[in-house]
């Protein structure tokens, strides 16, 4: 499993340098931070104060366009656009007295299109209420927004709760992938050890498990930092956080078990057997139980998993190399630890 040669190590380091540089330096798409007021009525003139993020409204202010978009695709274009500052703009919408068919209170999306920045989108920005007595259908006001400006090519999407923390995707998530690969490698070596014995496979299993725990702790910490910014606390007793902590406890117990057995052969066997057992309980712990209850974390409790919606093409260009890079780094670290264990044993035998 621990391949000889330098190429994969160099590849891992290059990928990680690329991931850190690109992940930290690539700007976000323009976004809408704040809109006030957040509700309106049919038949009135709605004045919106919009604060943007990563926007330059003062440049080419005259060609700024904005729409309120209904779920069915039709949209109402802003009748007046008044740029207040580089980040603030005042939009005027004349809401028709008869809104399209739908519920009495309809959430609509706000679109702000800028020629050089690109399009900023805020879903469920405004709640519009249908007042009584609106009968005349103003069919002429609806249009389909088109000719969106592209904006800079290499950007990450803007999400309102995530904002800049979206970059954590290249650290938190790939660290978990790396941990799973490392634990899997540890299981393979444990099986090998049980089948044929030999000190090397046992030492490799130990090295992979230790590196896996390190990656797990880092994944948990990066997750906690992310949770502080999105959920409001480092630890919110979310099922996914708890189960992860339990999973790490299981693997810490692996080392306690090994320490409690004196005979080296028996230590290897018991450790390998427990390692296989622990890995198999990891699957229900991390992938089955959290899906059964409510969770704040994506991928469980009705929240969508990481899918096409969350990961756009630019993010994929960084995310997949990040998985490969972190995994390669983990395997390199494990191979170093294995060599250390091997050397230590040789020294102990010698002295």
């Amino acid at each position: 499993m621990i391949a000889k040669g330098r190429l994969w190590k160099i590849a891992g380091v290059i990928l990680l340098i690329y991931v850190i540089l690109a992940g930290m330096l690539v700007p976000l798409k323009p976004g809408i931070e704040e809109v006030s007021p957040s509700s309106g009525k049919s038949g009135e003139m709605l004045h919106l104060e919009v604060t943007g993020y990563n926007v330059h409204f003062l440049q080419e202010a005259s060609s700024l366009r904005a729409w309120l978009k209904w779920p069915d695709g039709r949209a109402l274009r802003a009748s007046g656009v008044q740029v207040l500052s580089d980040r603030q703009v005042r939009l005027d919408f004349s809401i028709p007295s008869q809104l399209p068919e739908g519920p009495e209170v309809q959430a609509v999306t706000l679109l702000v299109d800028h020629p050089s920045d690109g399009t900023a989108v805020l879903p469920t920005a405004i709640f519009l209420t249908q007042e009584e007595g609106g009968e005349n259908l103003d069919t002429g006001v609806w249009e389909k927004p088109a000719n969106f400006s592209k904006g800079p090519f290499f950007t990450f999407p803007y999400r309102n709760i995530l904002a800049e923390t979206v970059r954590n995707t290249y650290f938190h998530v790939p660290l978990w992938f790396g941990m799973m690969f490392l634990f899997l490698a540890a299981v393979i070596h444990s099986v090998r050890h049980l089948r044929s014995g030999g000190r090397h496979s046992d030492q490799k299993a130990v090295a992979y498990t230790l590196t896996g725990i390190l990656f797990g702790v880092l994944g948990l910490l990066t997750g906690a930092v992310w949770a502080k910014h999105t959920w409001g606390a480092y630890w919110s007793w979310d099922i996914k956080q708890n189960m992860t902590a339990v999973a790490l406890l299981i693997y810490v117990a692996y080392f306690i078990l090994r320490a409690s057995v004196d005979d080296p052969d028996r230590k290897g066997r018991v450790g390998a057997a427990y390692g296989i057992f622990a890995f198999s309980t990891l699957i229900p712990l991390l992938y089955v139980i959290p899906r059964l209850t409510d969770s704040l974390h994506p991928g469980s409790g009705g929240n969508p998993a990481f899918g096409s919606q969350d990961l756009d093409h630019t993010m994929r260009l960084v995310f997949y190399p990040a998985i490969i890079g972190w995994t390669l780094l983990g395997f390199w670290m494990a191979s170093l630890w294995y060599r250390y264990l091997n050397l230590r044993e040789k020294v102990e035998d010698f002295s």
Partner: protein
Amino acid sequence: MASFITQVGSGGEDWLETGSENSHSKLYLQAYHGMPHKGDPPRRNMKDLYAIGLLLRKEFLLELRTGAAIAGITLYVVSTLFVVYEMFVRIQPSVWNTLFWIVFLFVSVNALVKSFVREKGDRALYYYHLLNPSHVLLAKIGYNMLLMFVLGLLIWGLFIFFGDNPVREPGLFSGVIFLGSVGFSVVFTFLASMTALGNQSATLLAVLSFPLVIPMILLLVKISAHALGLLRDTAIGGDIAVLVAIELLCGGLALILFPILWKS
């Protein structure tokens, strides 16, 4: 049952233990090695079952004869429950549910930690030459499962005796206790075989097993909340299926890994 209880009453315990051990070994050898046709699946299954049955009977005999272990764990249950009610006086159903499973968990650890204390040193060597390790594990799990089921019912009974009974569906609750005893006995028996050789096996067993049984205990608490009428959820079948799947997974792994451990 009657025959060995009279045996217990009639003679010196040491003599009986070694005597019955030997006679059982003979029966076991007949069952296990005396197979006339090896490639005869139904007969072979019967032999396996018979061998496990003999080992199971041996477990019961030894346990009933020593008696102290059973009495000890029963006293442990009673005093724990007494302490719980001294502290809480009145217990809300949701708290009752949690307390029941905490007591059950600690009773399991204390009852099952000594599953392999007898299999040490010379006797381990003797068994190793004589027995099929899968039979040993299955017999131990079977015995521990019954023990835990009885202890679970005892805990429930004492909860009713000291306080009241918030259980709305006794049938479902007994079923949950049964599933719990199956799962706990599988995990604790297998891990006890690992920790039996260490010095602080009780601490080590708790450290190793608590994180491993957490998925089970979460599901058990959720299903038993149904039995207490705390949850009105229609997805109970799914929870039971996941619990059974986890137990089967653990049991299968224990059966694969135990013979390898037994060798060392």
